[in-house]
C-alpha cells in the first residue's frame, strides 16, 4: 500500500561503469584487474574493475600507486564518447518509467517513480525491471537502491553492490542508517567524518542521539541536515535536468514472435501505449521510431520524420505498422518491439488535422 505523500525513489548506480564497459567490449580484459586511465607516471585511475578493487585500487588513485598495489593491473585509455553513448542509452530506459530523472553523473541517477509510467505495482519491481533492461540492452550490471527519499536510496544502492538491489521501506529508514558509519552518508566527507568521530559520533545511531543545536554548534548550517539524515529524513525532490525529448514503449515477449500479424499486433499495442502518454502530456512529436530486436539479439530500428507532429492515434498506428513492415521478411523471431515518438513540437494555435492520405 502506498500512503499519500510517500515518494518512491530509485537510485541507480552502474557497477564500475567505465571499467565494465571496457571489459564488455574487450573479452581479454574480462576477469582481470583493469583500470581506466593512463598508466603513465602522472596518470590517475578514473575507474577500477572489481578485480582491481580487490587489490585496493580505487578511483582517483595515482596510477603509480595503483600499479604498486596491483602489479598485474591493465591500464585502458578512457573512451568517454562510448561511455556517454551508453549513458544516453540507459537514460532512455529510465525515460520509459518516469520523467523525473536526476542524473548525478554518467553512471548514476535518481528516479522518482512515485507515478511510474509502466504501471508497475512497486518501486522494487520497477528497479528490478530497469536493471534487467540495462543488462539486456547494454550488457552491463547496475545496482539500485529503493526507498522513500534520495538519501536512503543512494545508501541502499551501495548496500548490495555489485549487481544488487536493496530496499529501505517506509519506517525502516532510521534503523537502516543506525549501523552505518557516518562517513558513508551523503554530505559527510572525510574531514567531517573525522570531526564527528572525534566527537564520539561513529554510526548513524550515534548521530541520531545528537540534538540539532549540538550539531549546529559544531557543524554550522549543515547541522540540521545531519540531524535529518540520522532520522532517515530527506525532503529534496528529484529534479529532472531536461525536458522530455521522447516517449517510448517497448515489450519483450515471452516467446519470440514469428508471424507478421503477431508482430504488427505487438507494434500496435506499443503505439497505443505511447499515444496514451502523448495525449495525456499533450506532447506530439514528428518522429516515429520502431525498434525490433530479434531472438538472436540483433536489433533494427526504423524511423520516419514527418513535416508535422503526429496528432492522432490512427496516424501513429499506421506509421508504426508501415515501419515494422520494412524489415519483412523477418530474418528470425522477434524478441522485443518498441515504438517511440520524438521531435516534440509545441502545440500551436488551433490546427485542422488531416487524413493520412
Amino acid at each position: 500500500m502506498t500512503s499519500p505523500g510517500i515518494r518512491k525513489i530509485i537510485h541507480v548506480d552502474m557497477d564500475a561503469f567505465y571499467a565494465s564497459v571496457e571489459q564488455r567490449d574487450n573479452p581479454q580484459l574480462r576477469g582481470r584487474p583493469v583500470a581506466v586511465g593512463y598508466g603513465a607516471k602522472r596518470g590517475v585511475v578514473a575507474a577500477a574493475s572489481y578485480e582491481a578493487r580487490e587489490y585496493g585500487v580505487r578511483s582517483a588513485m595515482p596510477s603509480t600507486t595503483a600499479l604498486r598495489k596491483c602489479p598485474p593491473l591493465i591500464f585502458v585509455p578512457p573512451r568517454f564518447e562510448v561511455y556517454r553513448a551508453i549513458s544516453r542509452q540507459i537514460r532512455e530506459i529510465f525515460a520509459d518509467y518516469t520523467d523525473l530523472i536526476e542524473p548525478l553523473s554518467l553512471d548514476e541517477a535518481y528516479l522518482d517513480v512515485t507515478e511510474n509510467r509502466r504501471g508497475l505495482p512497486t518501486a522494487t519491481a520497477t528497479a528490478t525491471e530497469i536493471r534487467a533492461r540495462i543488462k539486456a540492452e547494454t550488457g552491463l550490471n547496475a545496482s539500485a537502491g529503493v526507498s522513500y527519499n534520495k538519501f536512503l536510496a543512494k545508501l541502499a544502492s551501495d548496500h548490495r553492490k555489485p549487481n544488487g538491489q536493496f530496499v529501505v521501506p517506509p519506517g525502516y529508514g532510521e534503523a537502516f542508517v543506525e549501523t552505518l558509519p557516518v562517513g558513508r552518508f551523503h554530505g559527510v566527507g572525510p574531514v567531517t567524518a573525522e570531526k564527528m568521530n572525534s566527537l564520539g559520533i561513529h554510526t548513524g545511531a550515534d548521530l541520531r542521539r545528537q540534538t540539532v543545536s549540538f550539531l549546529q554548534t559544531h557543524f554550522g548550517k549543515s547541522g540540521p541536515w545531519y540531524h535529518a539524515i540520522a532520522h532517515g529524513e530527506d525532503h529534496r525532490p528529484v529534479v529532472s535536468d531536461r525536458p522530455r525529448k521522447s516517449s517510448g514503449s517497448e515489450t519483450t515477449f515471452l516467446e519470440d514472435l514469428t508471424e507478421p500479424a503477431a508482430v504488427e499486433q505487438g507494434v500496435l499495442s506499443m503505439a497505443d501505449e505511447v499515444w496514451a502518454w502523448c495525449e495525456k502530456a499533450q506532447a506530439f512529436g514528428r518522429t516515429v521510431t520502431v525498434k525490433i530486436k530479434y531472438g538472436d539479439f540483433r536489433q533494427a530500428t526504423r524511423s520516419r520524420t514527418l513535416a508535422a507532429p503526429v496528432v492522432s492515434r490512427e496516424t501513429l498506428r499506421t506509421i508504426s505498422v508501415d515501419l515494422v513492415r520494412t524489415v519483412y521478411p523477418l530474418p528470425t523471431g522477434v524478441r522485443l518491439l518498441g515504438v517511440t515518438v520524438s521531435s516534440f513540437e509545441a502545440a500551436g494555435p488551433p490546427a485542422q488535422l488531416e487524413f493520412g492520405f
Partner: protein
Amino acid sequence: MKITIERAALLRSLGHVQSVVERRNTIPILSNVLLKAENGELALTATDMDLEIVESVPADIARPGSATAPAHTLYDIARKLPDGSQVELDFTADTLTLRSGRSQFRLGALPVEDFPVMAGGDTGHRFTLSANDLKMLVDRTKFAISTEETRYYLNGIYLHASKAKTGAAEIPVLRAVATDGHRLARVEMALPDGASGIPGVIIPRKTVIEVRKLLDEAADRIEVQLSDTKVRFAFDSIVLTSKLIDGTFPDYERVIPTGNDKVMEVNAGQFAAAVDRVATISTEKSRAVKLSLDRGILTLSASSPEAGSATEEIEVSYDNTALEIGFNSRYLLDITQQIEGEGVRFTLADAGSPTVVRDVADGSALYVLMPMRV
C-alpha cells in the same frame, strides 16, 4: 438559319446552358452558345471544353441551319424580353438578328465550325437512377469536395460500385465519396441495374454542380452513361457530357475508423443551432469549437483572444469516459445540414482521431471528420 421560338422556352434553355459558359474566356468561341435548328427543334450547346451541355427545344424552323451567339448576351436579352413574346432568330452571313415585338438585336457571330464539339464515341455503361437519388448522392457529398488544385484527384465526387455489409450479407451499392482531406462524405444507394461493372470515376466539381442545378426541374429518370474518360447525364431534352478527372482517388476506406467506441447522440437541430451560436466567438480563421463530452452532457465552447468566449450545454446521449475534442464549426454545420432525421450520432475515439458522423435514422450516408487541435 431562321427560326421562331417562344421567349419562355428560349430563356429556360439558355438559362440551363449558359451557366456552363465561363464569364472570362481566353478562347472567344467558348463565350458562345451554338444554335442548331433542324427537325422542328432548336439545339443549344455550351461548353468549356471539359463539360458540354446540349438542350433541345421545339421551335418553328423556317430555314434549318446553325449559328453561334454570345451566350450571356443572348441570355440577358431573352431575360429582358416581355413575358409571352415570340422570338425570331435569323442568321445570315456573320450576323445573328434577333427580333421580338418592336425590339431588334444584331449580334456578331463567330464561325460555327470553330465551335468545339466534344468527341462522341462509346460511353460504355448505362444505367438509370431517380432524380431524387442522384440529388441525394450529390447533396450529401459535394460540400466535402476539395478545391485544392494540387490535389486535383480530390476535386470531384468519386462514383463507384461497391458492396455494403449488413450483417453477414453484402449488398451491391452505388457509392459517391468526396473528401478534402479534412472531412469525408460517403453516400450509398442500391446499385442500379446496369451499374455493376462501372469503373470508379471522379466527376469534376463543376459538372456535379451543373447537374445538380438541373435536377430540381428534371423528370424523375436520369440516364447515366459512363466510360473511363467521360460521364453523360441525359434527362428530359438535356444531355450533359463531361470529362472525368484523370487521377486515382485515394483509398478512402482507410480513413474511416472502425474501432471508435465513444458514441454520442444528439438532436441534430439543437446541436447545429448551438454550434452556430458558440462559433460566433471563434476566430474567423480557425472557426474552432470545442466539444467537451461527459455523461449525458455536451459542453460546446469557443474562445478567441479578440472576441472573448462562449459556452453552451446540450443534453446528449453519452455514456463513456469524458472527452474533449475540437472541430471546425463550419465542417460540423456542413454535415448536420445533411442530416434529415432528428438525431445525429457521433462515434469518437480521441481528440486526434477521425470521428464518424451519421444520421441516426438513415444509414445511407456516413461522414468522417478530422478534429482540430485546440
